[in-house]
């Protein structure tokens, strides 16, 4: 079947190549791993993860053909074998994505593989994040139709991707959204824009469990609203899931729900946003016994700030899908130029606060412990905050252009990180303070040098870190960088992770070569923790699009 569609594409491509257009992209990552005494990364130590192949590579290519209302595409992926850190299910090579899409008279039909999101994605979201190896694309049929102006309907049926195979669960969903201003003539011109939406999703998986009566069809519904009035924005979405005993929730029959509410105010030079979220038993997969990032139907966003600075990624937060609640507030402000603080060019201020707590969980009766398999699990007071704090962070970033040649960005981040829940290890609550100073200096036209100095101080876990980076860029083609992370505060082993890298850019093609060591990392999702070992190697990355 796969071959048939590919041959169809071949014929379509050659015959119609003159009238339609062909486009695509390509990426390939190669890594040669080198044994390292200091990191204990070698063949003799099996748990070090040193690959006996020594050389690993990932690659993919997308090719797409479009002609007026029709488009079709294919993606070939190869993991021979997958780079360290990638989910180990990626083994082998083949066509993992193929589709045909056409639209006629307002009806948009897609057959084959597709990505889709309903509302915020908390009820259904199929998406790809190639660099993390995340891909839960559907294979099936999707229809989109707009019967009236301002009304948008979507429906889909399909099975989800699991590496080079598919999950056995069937997923179906419908989503409707109405933009009141566009649908009702009387509301066309008013300043307040209102959008309402609703979805219904259900998944089917056969019950082969000898011990329990499991629901074969698990349904969920969602309703959302978005109001915009000039500078103000208010969004909210509520999702409700019916009983879904699964590995992630220890096979309890409790219903699940999620609420995401956010509001913002912004005008030129100033922006403020506030968001609050509560998740209760919302792990929703097309197969009950999957874990980690496999076969997730929905997407539960973490409301914490996503950081780019390397020391700030040592303690990352990931949503606890079985239950959490928290909020985030962010302030964006540009201090005007000409003022004392603003200087000649103004100063940017970005302050962010977020926290996450456990939800309230009470036993269903005196004799049944919390989360007991085969029971309703627990009861939870919606508005009560649980006792355990999972995460808290405050950060402030100031960016200032001093003169035509020099810019500074100074950042401070204070984090509280619950290591038992987030790392699966008992280091207690990890308190850390991070300082970052980034400078950009323009040496002459097209030549620029960027430096970063970062410092993380903590009394727990691995202790203090210091990091330095210098990057020299020659616009528009070249970059050259050296960096080192040094865990000097570690009482056990003081390891350093130096890296040297360089790259060449030309239009849409990019080559990057780097040599050095990479830090280890732990990922915990749904009660299962996996460790990505530290590594040392030479890597080459090539990407292009046409």
């Amino acid at each position: 079947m796969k071959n048939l569609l590919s041959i169809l594409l071949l014929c379509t491509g050659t015959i119609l190549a003159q009238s339609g257009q062909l486009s695509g992209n390509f990426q390939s990552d190669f890594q040669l791993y080198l044994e390292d005494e200091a990191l204990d990364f070698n063949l003799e130590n099996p748990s070090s993860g040193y690959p006996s192949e020594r050389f690993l590579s990932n690659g993919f290519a997308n090719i797409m053909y479009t002609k007026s209302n029709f488009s079709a595409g294919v993606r070939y992926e190869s993991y021979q074998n997958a780079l360290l850190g990638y989910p180990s299910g990626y083994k082998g090579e083949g066509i993992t994505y193929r589709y045909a899409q056409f639209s006629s008279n307002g009806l948009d039909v897609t057959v084959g593989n597709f990505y889709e999101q309903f509302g915020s994605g908390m009820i259904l979201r199929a998406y790809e994040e190639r660099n993390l190896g995340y891909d839960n694309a559907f294979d099936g049929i999707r229809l989109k139709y707009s019967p009236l102006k301002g009304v948008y309907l979507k429906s889909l049926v399909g099975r989800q991707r699991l590496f080079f195979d598919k999950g056995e669960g069937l997923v179906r969903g419908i989503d409707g959204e109405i933009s009141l201003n566009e649908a009702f003539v009387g509301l066309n011109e008013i300043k307040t824009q209102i959008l309402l939406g609703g979805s219904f999703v259900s998944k089917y998986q056969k019950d082969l469990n000898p011990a329990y009566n499991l629901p074969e069809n698990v349904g969920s519904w969602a309703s959302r609203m978005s109001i915009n009035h000039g500078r103000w924005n208010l969004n909210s979405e509520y999702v409700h899931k019916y009983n879904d005993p699964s590995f992630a929730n220890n096979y309890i029959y409790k219903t699940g729900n999620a609420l995401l509410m956010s509001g913002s105010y912004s005008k030129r030079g100033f922006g403020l946003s506030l968001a609050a979220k509560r998740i209760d038993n919302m792990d929703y997969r097309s197969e009950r016994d999957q874990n980690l990032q496999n076969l997730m139907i929905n997407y539960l966003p973490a409301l914490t700030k996503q950081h780019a600075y390397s020391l700030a990624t040592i303690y990352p937060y990931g949503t606890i899908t079985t239950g959490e609640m928290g909020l985030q507030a962010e302030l964006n402000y540009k201090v005007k130029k000409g003022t004392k603080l603003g200087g000649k060019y103004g100063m940017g201020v970005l302050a962010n606060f977020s926290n996450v707590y456990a939800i309230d969980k009470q036993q269903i009766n005196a004799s049944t412990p919390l989360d007991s398999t085969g029971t309703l699990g627990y009861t939870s007071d919606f508005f009560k905050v649980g006792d355990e704090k999972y995460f808290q962070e405050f950060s402030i970033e100031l960016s200032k252009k001093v003169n035509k040649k020099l810019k500074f960005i100074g950042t401070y981040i204070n984090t509280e990180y619950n290591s038992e829940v987030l790392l699966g290890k008992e280091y207690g609550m990890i308190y850390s303070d991070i300082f970052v100073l980034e400078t950009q200096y323009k040496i002459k036209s097209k030549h620029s040098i960027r430096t970063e100095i970062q410092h993380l101080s903590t009394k727990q876990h691995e202790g203090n870190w210091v990091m330095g980076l210098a990057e020299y860029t020659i616009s528009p083609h070249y970059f050259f960088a050296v960096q080192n992370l040094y865990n000097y505060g570690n009482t056990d082993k003081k390891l350093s992770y130096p890296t040297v890298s360089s790259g060449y850019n030309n239009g849409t093609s990019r080559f990057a070569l780097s040599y050095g060591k990479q830090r280890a990392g732990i990922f915990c999702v749904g009660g299962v923790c996996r460790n990505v070992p530290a590594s040392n190697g030479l890597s080459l990355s090539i990407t292009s699009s046409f």
Partner: protein
Amino acid sequence: MKTFKLYSLLVVLVSISFFSCAVIEEPFMVVQEEVSDSCEAFIFSPVETYTKKVLLEDYTGQACQNCPRAAEQAHEIQEQYGEQVVVIAVHAGYYAEPTSSYPNDFTTDTGDAWDTHFGNSSLGNPNGMVDRINYPNFHVLQFSQWEEKVSLQLQTMPTVGIQLAVNYNPASGLICVDTQTEVLTSLETNLHLTVVLIESGIISDQTDSSQDPQHVVDYEHNHVLRKGLTNPWGESLGQESYLQSELFTQRYSIEKQADWDINNMAVIAFVSDPETYEVLQVEELHLTE
């Protein structure tokens, strides 16, 4: 354009360095441990019928906070199916590494080889396998799936039967294991026999997320894989195909290690297909009665 060509030349040169090779030095053969052959011969009597037994492997670690849940599940399955389910707890991977707070080392060469090949710890602990079915893509199972797969495997007819005999000499410390494998129906595959020793009732540290504090010092570890008597992938029974009623006998011996408690140990032997890795039959026998 010129710089582009120079750069791509550099890239090509560097890429060539990627094609690394390993030069192996002597000795070329994998050296087996010396086996002292002072075991008495054992004569097996014929068996009328064999029942299918299922191998349940639990990949675990002392620092893995949810692993006690998996161990409890393996225990419940054994309570339900009795001798028909044979459990091996394989300590391997990052969460099994000895550290200052968890100083014991329950890892083994055999367990490490299995874990590296099947990828269990790389998928996050706890997890396991039932008869190693559905290799190469779906052999690793969450503990919530074990019972379903065990009951499915128990419904299959046995194609191989295994008998075990054990002799332990306390004076010399020598453990002798005799195995007899009987083919029950003609098979067109090669067969490998793997023999290991396990120990239960080991009191040691374990992280348990359901306890407060999580570090439990007197946790009882059961079915812990201690030593392989064959190499990790077993020994071939010698043929590419087998006929009904063919019998194969093997003998293994090993000296008891100081930290082993003989009274809590058992020998486990299983026959598997070396290509699909599927376990066709397993048998367990305690070292002492």
